[in-house]
């Protein structure tokens, strides 16, 4: 099992070193919340802030979400778990950030939990990897020898539904939506300003939290993330009414992988799959 205390120590040590030396101006990590079960995303900006850093099984947050908030060129150190590192890679591919401005503090981890339900979320709502894909410093022992679980296994029940049943499933789910937009705000890849749903001219969908507008918002967001979603599961975890958004994202990711033979956020050399044109690309998308 992951030694959370050890990672916390290493995280503090590295954060202190980087801030002291002036190598970075901010360390994006996890801080104390109102109790142990509720840590918070935290931006340490001085050595004194480092004491507030924590790491435990509830630190699910994808800190890559906060990268685009800082002006281009800011030197940032960021704590990354597997999916978070993929988000960083994807953001680099999309030219939102530059690798040279980042120090990636890699956290290999197994056994992250949902604080609401206490269930282990590895590979259920997340990408199922345990080791960060890209890092500069590793803060714990790499996880090896685990049974490899496909992140798409949780789709079995969903895929068993036919077209009508799926449509009904999503209609019922979207009826619950209160349009708080926590999903898009928690998503590291949702950085459009303004988001299409906030636009008035043209107005793409109803403002009211009801069927047509909700469907428009979610389906557009789903498709906007095709080939870009790195499967961190933050949207589903952020949702106050528990809409299983990850199911759609995983389904699209799976189809993208089958069609284009590329997984999002795995290499900074890649181009985003729907931006890139390759002669050998599948034509299935046009069918």
């Amino acid at each position, binding site marked *: 099992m992951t030694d959370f205390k050890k990672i916390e120590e290493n995280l503090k040590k590295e954060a202190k070193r980087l801030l002291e030396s002036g190598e970075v101006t901010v360390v994006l990590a996890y*801080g104390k*919340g*109102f*109790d142990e*079960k*509720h*840590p*918070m*995303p*935290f*931006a340490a900006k001085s050595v004194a802030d480092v004491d507030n850093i924590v790491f435990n099984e509830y630190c699910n*947050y994808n800190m890559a*979400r906060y990268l685009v*908030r800082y002006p281009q060129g800011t030197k940032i150190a960021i704590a990354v778990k597997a999916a978070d590192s993929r988000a960083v890679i994807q953001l680099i591919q999309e030219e939102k950030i530059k690798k040279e401005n980042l120090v990636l503090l890699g956290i290999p981890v197994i056994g992250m939990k949902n604080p*609401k339900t206490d269930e282990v979320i590895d590979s259920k709502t997340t990408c199922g990897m345990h080791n960060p894909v890209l890092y500069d410093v590793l803060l714990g022992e790499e996880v090896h020898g685990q049974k490899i679980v496909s992140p798409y296994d949780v789709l079995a029940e969903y895929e068993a539904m036919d077209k009508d049943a799926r449509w009904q499933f999503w209609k019922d789910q979207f009826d*619950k939506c*209160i*349009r*708080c*937009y*926590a999903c*898009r*705000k*928690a998503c590291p890849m949702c950085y459009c*300003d*303004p988001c299409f749903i*906030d636009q008035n001219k043209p107005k793409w969908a*109803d*403002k*009211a*939290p*009801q069927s*047509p*507008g909700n469907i428009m918002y979610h389906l557009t967001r789903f498709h906007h993330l095709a080939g870009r979603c790195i499967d961190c599961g*933050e949207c589903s*975890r*952020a*949702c*106050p*009414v*528990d809409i299983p958004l990850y199911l759609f994202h995983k389904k699209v990711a799976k189809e993208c992988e089958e069609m284009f033979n590329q997984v999002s956020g795995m290499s900074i050399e890649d181009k985003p799959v729907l931006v890139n044109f390759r002669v050998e690309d599948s034509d299935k998308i046009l069918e």
Partner: protein
Amino acid sequence: MLKKTAIEKISQLAAVLMEKGTLLAPVKEVAGHNFAEINDPQKVDLNFYNTIISPKGAFFPPKEDFIKYKIGKTITEAEQIKVDSKPVFLFGVRPCDVKSFSIMDIHFNAAGIIDPYWSQRRKATTIFGYAYDLNQPVDAADFYNSLGIYAADPEGSDIFMVKKDKDLLLKGITPKGEELLAQLNTLVDAGKDDEKYYEETLKKGKEYKTRFLCIDQDVIAKKLEAVFNNNDFWTKVSSACLSCGACTFVCPNCYCFDICDDTIFGKGTRRRVWDACMFTDFTLEASGHNPRTQVYQRLRQKINHKYSYHVKKYGVISCVGCGRCTRSCPVNIDIYSIVEEALKL
């Protein structure tokens, strides 16, 4: 008048209430409980701590249609949508949420500014308050004690309910509640020991402790005013904030709305929908100028509105400490901790 019923027979009571009008009660959903209009009396479920979303929607729904019209037609052809004035029974509201209604009345039902939609619904509704179960542990996010509210306060309810083992005790508080209680024939008269239990529960409610912070409303209002320009403080407490609307949408006291025209194929509806001061476009002006572009400005506005401006303008804090915003926040921002830290400055 004190009446009682077995909790397992609650669906019978629900059925009677459904005959008399619309019943809004907690139902179990995937993520937890929420208030919903009851179509099937079996669905009423009192086995809950508190609902995810506050019951404010009973009076101030997430979406309220005002007018339906056709583009190109005259205004006389537009249809004004009336509020249904059928009696409503709002069943199983926790004391902190009951308190929130009286704070919301300031905005929707005070002299001079009467919102017909809110006030008609308020008039048509009988509130069944429901004491927290004192045998269950208190949720770590709650802090209603800090705002002078206790787990078994009947104030503001028309009928107040207390759970006694397998029974539910119902006490008429207002004349409206007494009258209704007398009509509900599925209930039986409560005995002497039930009366004693009810009174004891009300007393014991004071010892059911949530997080507590000594909040003097004038002190906190002045304090927040004084630290308004302390950007370091506001940047620090908002550094995690995603600027989504989850906290305001679940809050029983957030009342901001947006009036919008939704049109499709030449048919339009003018309606109001919940809005949130945490959204980037909340303060976006027609000129393109936005006075609150930064996350810290928006979070500061939310805290100050509740704990400072509201006190100065209306003499009461616009928060009841139900803990919903903390529980629903995707990044665990805790309004209680922010107030606590502000007081230390």
